[in-house]
Every structure is written in structure tokens, then in C-alpha cells.
């Protein structure tokens, strides 16, 4: 091949047409103009978009945690509190597939799940899987120490209930999301719930927070809730009910303790109960707050109201006597008493709990309307307004529909129904000289004025009658409490099984104490006692006695019974010492 010199290359000799270079020049210019416009756009009007993008790279939204409010009892003792807990999360795309068997085993044992289940969870398609929620912080630390990539911890709260089953029905519980499901946790959800806040921060390359930009929403902690319940009284009421249910092989039981001066609910006990800290295997039976949600026929506990209506009308006095007899026919079925009585005074009708007596008072001295007015005035047929979920109203049929046998039977507590709570509340009229007290479940220790139902005179007469029930000759001698005079009324009601009354019973006792200056109203119910006696005076009265004496002692109420004891006026240290040396213990004789 012949060599060609550089200067003689034929390409140089070639002449291109002029338009091609012009076109090239134009295109270059055009593209530069476009670039210029774009640059101008980015710097100017289109700036916001890029700024936002830059912010997204360096700024983060962080959640500011807010805790759920505590629930306290009347003395400020915690009955529900939220503590920090962790949830263990697996980010499945980060968890290595070849995770060592040893680590899986360790993790499984820490989480208390089988290795098989854990592996299955780690293989799930979803990006994020909760391995376990509400894990104890110490356990969470151990999991963290395993240093398994892709296993993370998240902050959560877990609710704890120190009083456990004694308080379960009052407080209720929350779910894993920390939301109220039952009891006060549910009914006061709005106040108790916290609202987490949000803040915007600048983070550096490693994700550390270096600067606050703004708090976009302040976190709002839930408000604490202080109940009127006294944990001590609640506990002793629960224990008394529990041991009675066990002793009499009963199905269930309940008790209510009310402060008649302030209208505060001091205790609401139910058995069977459950442990709100561990709710596995829970059944509906245990969850029911029987005291408020179960309706039953109040039986003889209603007699004092029938008698009050007649006393109030002025047609009888406690000493009016009436012939009782062995049976009394109103309608188709005769009314009978457990023990036949000859002639009784009105006071003895209460003391001996005579069905015939109560029915005769109703038929001879009262109109259906007057009776209906009395039962309605003390709260039967209306749900108590205490802000508790599921409180029942009970049934009280309109008096216009009553036939004579209805009227006679309502007089001793059949044919109407209510909750134990309503009974306890109704009895406050005897404690408060005729006033029905408004009730509250939140602490408010000031004296409350009630609505007048009967005159003070009638209430005082009724108190005397109620006390005779617990004295020798009455139906509930076992209701007597150490050191205090008590008054109340027994009740033993046949349970409706389907449409007929079967051989199942409810035993009640409702009463007030101390009689000289009543402070509390207590109602006790034992459902289906079996094996031995099923009478209210034998089954429920001892529970009443235990609750009353311990409650009054807890409330520092001075004993009013005739027990010999030293009471010192104006006591100084010297007198106290002298008295404590000389005071001899006196054994209470009944």
C-alpha cells in the first residue's frame, strides 16, 4: 500500500456544503438555550419542589409518646397503670435466610414460642411481622443482645392492674392497642387515652437528630382518673363474697358498699372474677359485672319500701297489729310464709319477714299507684346514672296493668326486678332520714343533698324495724357486726327457671350501719347457694356482717354498740398511756 502524507489526506480536499455547519451551529445554540431555561426554572419558580426534596432527605418526623392516664382509688393508690413494654418486630427482607440454628433457638426460647412457629413467622411474605407484643423491657434487652439483623424493638405500653381480680369488674381492661374494652377503662376512654405528638427534626448522615425544626403537635398524656372505690374495702368485700360462694357451693356472688353521706361507691365486688393482667381463657361468666348488669327479683328486700309507703300515708304505725294466718289467697295461688305466724305488728312483719303481712299491708292500705310511686322514687325501673357500661334499669310494670295478685306479690318483691346496685341505693333513704342520695363512682368526698322520698320520722321508724331483724327473734341474727349496731333486711328469692319458679334460690341481705348514725349502705347477693341453708339470713347476712365491721373500722367510724370500751375526751399523751395500761379487754357476748 502506498503511504499517504498527513497533509495530503484526501479528506482535507473534500468540501462540505455550507448548510450543514449552519445547522450544527443552530442546534448547539438551541440546546444551550433549553439548558439555560431549565436552569432558570430550577433556580426560580420550580424551586419549591427541590427544596422539599432536600428537606425530605435531612428531616424526619418523630413521634412524641403520650401515656394513658392512671386509675387511682380514693386514697391515691394505683389500680391501673401503663408501663413501657416492647414489641418485637421482624423485618423479613432483612433477616438473613441462613440464620444460625442456635440463634433461632435462643430467640424462640426468649419469646416463649416453638422454633417451628418462629421459623414460620420469619418466612411470611409480609415485610413486617410482630413476633410478640408487650414484652417485658428486660426480656427485650436480652433479645437485643442476640444482635440478629432485621429483628427490631418498638415502644409500646402495657397496662398493669395491681389489685388483680378483686378490682377487675370495676376497672375493666385495655387491649394491646391500649384502648379500653371493659369497665371504667371503656367508659372513660376519652379522658384516659393519651394523644401522641409529632415533631420535625434535622438528622445527620447517620440518622442522629441534630436539630429541632418544630413541634407540630404537642403530645397529650391521658388524664388520671380517681375513683371513689377504696381498694381496702373492695378487697375485703371481694374476699367475703368469695369465701361465702365457696362455702355454700354457690354459682356466683356480689356485694355493693355505698357511702350514704357522700354518695360515693366504696366497693363493687363480684365473684367469679378474672385476673385482668392475664386474660387467657376468659369466659363471659367471669366478665359479667353482676352487681350492675344482672336483674333479679329483689324478694323480701323490697318489703321495707312497701311498709314505708303505708307509714308515710299515715294509715298504720309500727305498732299496728294485724292477723296473719297460715295462708292468704289473692288471685289463684295462696301466699304463704316460711313459718306460720298468728298476729304480728307491722314491725314484726319486717322482723319475721312475713310475705302475708307485706301482701296484706299492700292490699288493705295502699293503691297500686302509691306502691308504684314508692318503688320508682327509690330508683327501681331506671338505670342508675353512674357512667358505667351495661348498668340495667330492671323492670317495674306500669301499675295500670297490675291485677290484684300482681299488687300483692310486688309487695314482697316478686314481679319486679332490679340489680343489686339498685337495692343498695334504695336503702340509702333509711340511712339519710328519707333522702335518696345521688351516687358517683368518682371521688368527691363532700356531703351530698339527696331528693326526699319519705319523711325523717318514717325513716327513723324504719331504721328501728330494720335493726330488730338483726336482733334475737329476727331473720338475720348473723348480720350483727362486731362493735356496731346494724339494720337490714334479708331476702330469699326463688329463681325463675324458664317461666316457672324452680328449686333455685338467691340469698340477699341489704342493710345500713351503724344504726345510730348511718354511714354505709351494703347489699350482698349469693346466687344459687347449695348444700345446706339457702336463706338470706344464713348465707348473705354473715357476708354483710364481715363487710360492715371491717369497712366501718377502715373508715374510722366510732363503734355504737354496747361493747364496753374506753372513749377519752381531750386525750393527751399521759391519759392515753394511763388508759392503755388500765383498759381491760372485754369479750363481746351475744
Amino acid at each position, binding site marked *: 500500500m502506498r503511504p499517504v502524507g498527513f497533509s495530503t489526506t484526501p479528506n482535507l480536499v473534500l468540501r462540505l456544503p455550507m448548510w450543514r455547519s449552519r445547522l450544527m451551529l443552530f442546534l448547539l445554540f438551541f440546546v444551550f438555550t433549553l439548558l439555560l431555561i431549565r436552569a432558570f426554572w430550577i433556580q426560580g419558580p420550580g424551586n419549591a419542589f427541590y427544596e422539599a426534596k432536600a428537606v425530605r432527605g435531612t428531616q424526619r418526623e418523630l413521634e412524641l409518646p403520650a401515656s394513658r392516664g392512671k386509675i387511682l382509688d380514693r386514697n391515691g393508690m*394505683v389500680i391501673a*397503670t401503663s*408501663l413501657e413494654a416492647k414489641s418485637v418486630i421482624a423485618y423479613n427482607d432483612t433477616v438473613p435466610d441462613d440464620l444460625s440454628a442456635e440463634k433461632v433457638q435462643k430467640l424462640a426460647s426468649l419469646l416463649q414460642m416453638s422454633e417451628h412457629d418462629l421459623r414460620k413467622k420469619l418466612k411470611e411474605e409480609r415485610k413486617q411481622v410482630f413476633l410478640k407484643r408487650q414484652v417485658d423491657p428486660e426480656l427485650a434487652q436480652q433479645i437485643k443482645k442476640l444482635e440478629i439483623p432485621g429483628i427490631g424493638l418498638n415502644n409500646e405500653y402495657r397496662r398493669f392492674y395491681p389489685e388483680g381480680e*378483686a378490682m377487675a369488674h370495676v376497672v375493666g381492661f385495655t387491649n394491646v392497642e391500649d384502648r379500653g374494652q371493659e369497665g371504667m377503662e371503656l367508659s372513660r376512654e376519652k379522658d384516659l387515652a393519651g394523644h401522641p405528638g409529632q415533631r420535625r427534626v434535622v438528622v445527620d448522615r447517620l440518622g442522629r437528630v441534630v436539630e*429541632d425544626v418544630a413541634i407540630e403537635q404537642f403530645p397529650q398524656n391521658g388524664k388520671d382518673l380517681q375513683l371513689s372505690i377504696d381498694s381496702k374495702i373492695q378487697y375485703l368485700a371481694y374476699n367475703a363474697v368469695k369465701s361465702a360462694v365457696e362455702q355454700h357451693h354457690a354459682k356466683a356472688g356480689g356485694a355493693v358498699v355505698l357511702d350514704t353521706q357522700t354518695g360515693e361507691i366504696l366497693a363493687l365486688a363480684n365473684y367469679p372474677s378474672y385476673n385482668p393482667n392475664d386474660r387467657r381463657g376468659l369466659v363471659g361468666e367471669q366478665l359479667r359485672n353482676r352487681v350492675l348488669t344482672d336483674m333479679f327479683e329483689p324478694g323480701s328486700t323490697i318489703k321495707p319500701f312497701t311498709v314505708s309507703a303505708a307509714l308515710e300515708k299515715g294509715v298504720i304505725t309500727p305498732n299496728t297489729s294485724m292477723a296473719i294466718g297460715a295462708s292468704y289467697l289473692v288471685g289463684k295461688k295462696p301466699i304463704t310464709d316460711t313459718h306460720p305466724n298468728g298476729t304480728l305488728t307491722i314491725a314484726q312483719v319486717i322482723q319475721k319477714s312475713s310475705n302475708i303481712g307485706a301482701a296484706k299491708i299492700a292490699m288493705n292500705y295502699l293503691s297500686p299507684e302509691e306502691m308504684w310511686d314508692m318503688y320508682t322514687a327509690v330508683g327501681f325501673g331506671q338505670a342508675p346514672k353512674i357512667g358505667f357500661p351495661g348498668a340495667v334499669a330492671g323492670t317495674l310494670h306500669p301499675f295500670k296493668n297490675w291485677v290484684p295478685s300482681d299488687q300483692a306479690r310486688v309487695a314482697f318483691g316478686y314481679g319486679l326486678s332490679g340489680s343489686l346496685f339498685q337495692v343498695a341505693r334504695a336503702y340509702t333513704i333509711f340511712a339519710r332520714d328519707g333522702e335518696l342520695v345521688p351516687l358517683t363512682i368518682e371521688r368527691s368526698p363532700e356531703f351530698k343533698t339527696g331528693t326526699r322520698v319519705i319523711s325523717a320520722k318514717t325513716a327513723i321508724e324504719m331504721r328501728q324495724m330494720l335493726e330488730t331483724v338483726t336482733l334475737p327473734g329476727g331473720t338475720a341474727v348473723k348480720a350483727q357486726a362486731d362493735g356496731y349496731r346494724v339494720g337490714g333486711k334479708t331476702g330469699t328469692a326463688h329463681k325463675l327457671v324458664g317461666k316457672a319458679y324452680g328449686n333455685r334460690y338467691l340469698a340477699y341481705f341489704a342493710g345500713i350501719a351503724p344504726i345510730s348514725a348511718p354511714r354505709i349502705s351494703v347489699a350482698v347477693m349469693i346466687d344459687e347457694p347449695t348444700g345446706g341453708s339457702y336463706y338470706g339470713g344464713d348465707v348473705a347476712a354473715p357476708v354483710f356482717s364481715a363487710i360492715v365491721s371491717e369497712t366501718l373500722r377502715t373508715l374510722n367510724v*366510732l*363503734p355504737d354498740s354496747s361493747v364496753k370500751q*374506753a372513749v377519752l375526751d381531750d386525750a393527751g399523751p399521759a391519759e392515753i398511756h394511763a388508759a392503755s395500761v388500765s383498759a381491760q379487754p372485754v369479750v363481746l357476748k351475744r
Partner: protein
Amino acid sequence: MNRATLTLLSLLLICALSLVAAQQRARKLFVALERTQVEEYKLNQDWLRLEYEQRNLSKSARIRDVARNQLRMMPISPERTLYLKEAK
């Protein structure tokens, strides 16, 4: 003229440096604040936990058990109690 420029230039430099220093300090303080806030949260949680523990130790069921079984105590009854009236 020349001198004035130099003075202004050095002033500018000082300002710029102090700005950097101030920002550095602000960040440090912020980190400290952040740490104390975390600490505060932790202490708060600890307090709640301790309160719960105390409550658990002082609950009626435990007191009853300890008093009856360990300390062999028995409930008081009114006949063995001395009641004092408040001085008027």
C-alpha cells in the same frame, strides 16, 4: 481606604468564624438537651415502675397474708380498741 477594607474584611472573618462556633455550640447543646429528655423519659418510666412495684408490695392481699401468716397478727376488734376523741 486600604485600611478600612482590611478592617472590614477581618471583621467579616471574625463574624463568620463566630457563626460557625455558635452553630457548633447550639448543636452540642441540642444533643445534650436531647439526651436529658431521653433521660427524663427513662426516669419517668422508672418512677412508674417503682410506683407499681410499691403498690404490688402494699396491696391488701399481700399485707393480709404477711400479717396473718408471717407476723402471726390478728384483726383488731372494737372491744380491745381504745377510741380517742379529738380535743375541741
